């Protein structure tokens, strides 16, 4: 008796849910944000949460999507691949979001973006800078310029500051995905600019003692040091380089692009050159309003991760606005709207705090402006990034 009824009940339930899924209309306009709110990646993810929440409040206060407010749904990815997959799966099937901004790490994106691709849900990576992200599929794009585009600017700027530079040392954190791909770009740029790559040194993001690497750099008598690492290790490395007597210029990669490194190297941070995909000094009206409101609310200038998360939400919202003007969003089926949203994201041009951005056919961001800043320390704890022309 039970044996015959159970499969029938199950298949009936399956048919019912499938039937419901097909007829599902858009009732609330929700956009998913899947970034790291826990684990050690949360250091970056928290800034993204702030950026996205700020975008929700700010853009809704200015009319949302042609008068209808939109809602952000947050799911924590943690710092690992399984967490990212779970967060994406929840957003797609349970929260039925129209698009997803996330995840934080490129390694997580390689795990979770294929899930969205198969479900035909558009994804915008807010901080995935590794090679190969937009190529995951048609529904995957990013607002974060790849390291290959950002990094070379710093080397060119250093050459402007000191045209006599000849010998270069490159150091990188070999257990960090971002730093290893960034150092590749730096090393190619060094060769392309006709400089000598005197020594390449590796370290771990968990290291605190860099005597070996610093000694090698000093022995090579270089005029420029390029570091790809994260805030704590990179800061310590800068500190020890200066303490042991290195006098030349230092370039830091994107991982050092945060005021979190100031307490680590303190006054010795002074003068480090950093290439950025975002600068609070960027002059567009969009950015200046963003910086003003953000500073008023959080008492500090917006960091790059917050600005990129904001830009991700903004792109989704503006694309939805464009669709809504043609055909009211509430009349769409969720599945069709997701596909249309993806098309619209790739078509548009967006005036974001990052400057004017658009996307190529694969979903790679086309960004007009990049920035190079130099750290200026006021005292042991406070400093700022000074934008170099």
């Amino acid at each position, binding site marked *: 008796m039970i044996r015959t009824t159970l499969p029938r009940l*199950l298949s009936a*339930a*399956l048919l019912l*849910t*499938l039937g419901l*899924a097909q007829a599902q209309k858009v009732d609330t306009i929700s956009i998913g944000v899947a970034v790291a*709110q*826990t684990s050690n990646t949360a250091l970056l993810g928290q800034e993204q949460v702030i950026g996205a929440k700020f975008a929700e409040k700010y853009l809704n206060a200015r009319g949302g999507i042609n008068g209808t407010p939109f809602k952000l749904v*947050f*799911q*924590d990815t*943690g710092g*690992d*691949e*399984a967490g990212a*997959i*779970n967060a994406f*799966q*929840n957003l*797609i*099937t*349970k929260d039925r979001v129209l698009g997803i901004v996330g995840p934080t790490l*490129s*390694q997580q994106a*390689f*795990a*979770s973006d*294929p*899930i969205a691709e*198969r479900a035909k849900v558009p994804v915008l990576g807010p901080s995935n800078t*590794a*090679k*190969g992200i937009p190529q*995951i599929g048609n529904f995957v794009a990013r607002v974060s310029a790849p390291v290959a585009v950002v990094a070379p600017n710093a080397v060119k700027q250093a050459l402007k500051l000191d045209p006599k530079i000849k010998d270069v040392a490159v150091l990188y954190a*070999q*257990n*960090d*995905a971002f*730093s*290893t*791909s960034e150092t590749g770009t730096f090393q190619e740029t060094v060769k392309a600019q006709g400089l000598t790559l005197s020594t390449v040194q590796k370290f771990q993001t968990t290291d605190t003692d860099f005597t070996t690497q610093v000694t090698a750099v000093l022995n090579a008598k270089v005029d420029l040091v390029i570091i790809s690492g994260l805030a704590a290790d990179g800061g310590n490395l800068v500190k020890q380089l200066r303490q042991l007597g290195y006098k030349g210029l230092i370039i830091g990669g994107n991982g050092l692009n945060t005021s979190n490194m100031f307490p680590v190297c303190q006054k010795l941070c002074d003068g480090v050159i950093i290439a950025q995909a975002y600068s609070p000094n960027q002059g567009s009206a969009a950015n200046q309003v963003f910086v003003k409101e953000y500073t008023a609310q959080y008492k500090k200038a917006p960091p790059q991760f917050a600005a990129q998360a904001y830009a991700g939400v903004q792109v989704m919202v503006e694309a939805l606005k464009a669709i809504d003007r043609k055909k009211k969003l509430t009349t769409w089926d969720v599945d069709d709207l997701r596909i249309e949203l993806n098309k619209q994201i790739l078509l548009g041009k967006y005036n974001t705090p990052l400057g004017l951005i658009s996307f190529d056919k694969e979903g790679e961001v086309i960004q007009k402006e990049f920035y190079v800043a130099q750290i200026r320390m006021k005292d042991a704890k406070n400093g700022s990034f000074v934008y170099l022309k």
Partner: protein
Amino acid sequence: MNDFLQTYGFLIATMLQAGLLGLSLYFPLQAGQLSLASPGFYALGGYVAAILLTNPSFAGLRDTLGQGIFPLTWLAGAVLGGLLGVVVGVPALRLRGIYLALATIAFVEILRVVALNLTVTGGAVGIFGIPQTFGFQDRWQYIFLFGPLLALTLLFTRQLERSRVGRALRALREDELAADAMGVPPTQYKVLAFVIGAALAGLVGAMSAPFLNTWNAKQGTFDSSITILAAVLIGGSRNIWGPVVGGALLAAVPEVLRFLADWRLVINGLVLVVASLYLPQGIVGALARLTRPRPPQRPLAPAYEKQP
């Protein structure tokens, strides 16, 4: 139902996978060896599968075998895991207790650093764009891989425990010297248990690379060693169901508690603390004690009877 599977299918498969990894640690524990090497073999298996499935130099092999490449990756993962298990196990198992645990942690670290430095493993970024096993479209379909594997492993473990080898392993766990004196060669049996665990971990790794879509050096770290050990200890290390229950529970708790947002990891920590404080034999051990019949009581002394 479909939505349920779409949302939680990945989690269910992860629970089965965690149970399998717990079992891979359970084999050496059967012989009384506290080894934390499982994540190393798991990472190795995953890399073997990821390389076979994506590296251009195996393109010819993939074309000839078609879908048959997937079982081949499982076999390769298990065999390489087992072989490396012998290589590591023979010298490492001369160590005991905490020293063995340290040596196996070192082994996991060495593998991780090697993976970071090789180009074939993709360095720190790892390997991505891994094709799906048999063209699976959804994560829940991986239950069809991990489920039967778990069932087979449990069956195998039960048979092993009932066999002569199982009794020898148990004897080693209880008292190595006494077992040796009774004619059980310790090294041979310890290495055997270690290698079975290594092969299983390699196999699970090979199945997991397509499941996660990507594979990198973070898959086999000291952290994952501790997670798996915690799963085994919380589930119970003396019963085959212990690692399965513990692995499934630890994989599920943070996900099921997703609605609690930031608090979910606090609850996860509480589960760990409470379980280790109040359930020394693990959850399964505690349950077994509840269901076990009370030990026979000595009958009361007959009341003194007056002689007529």
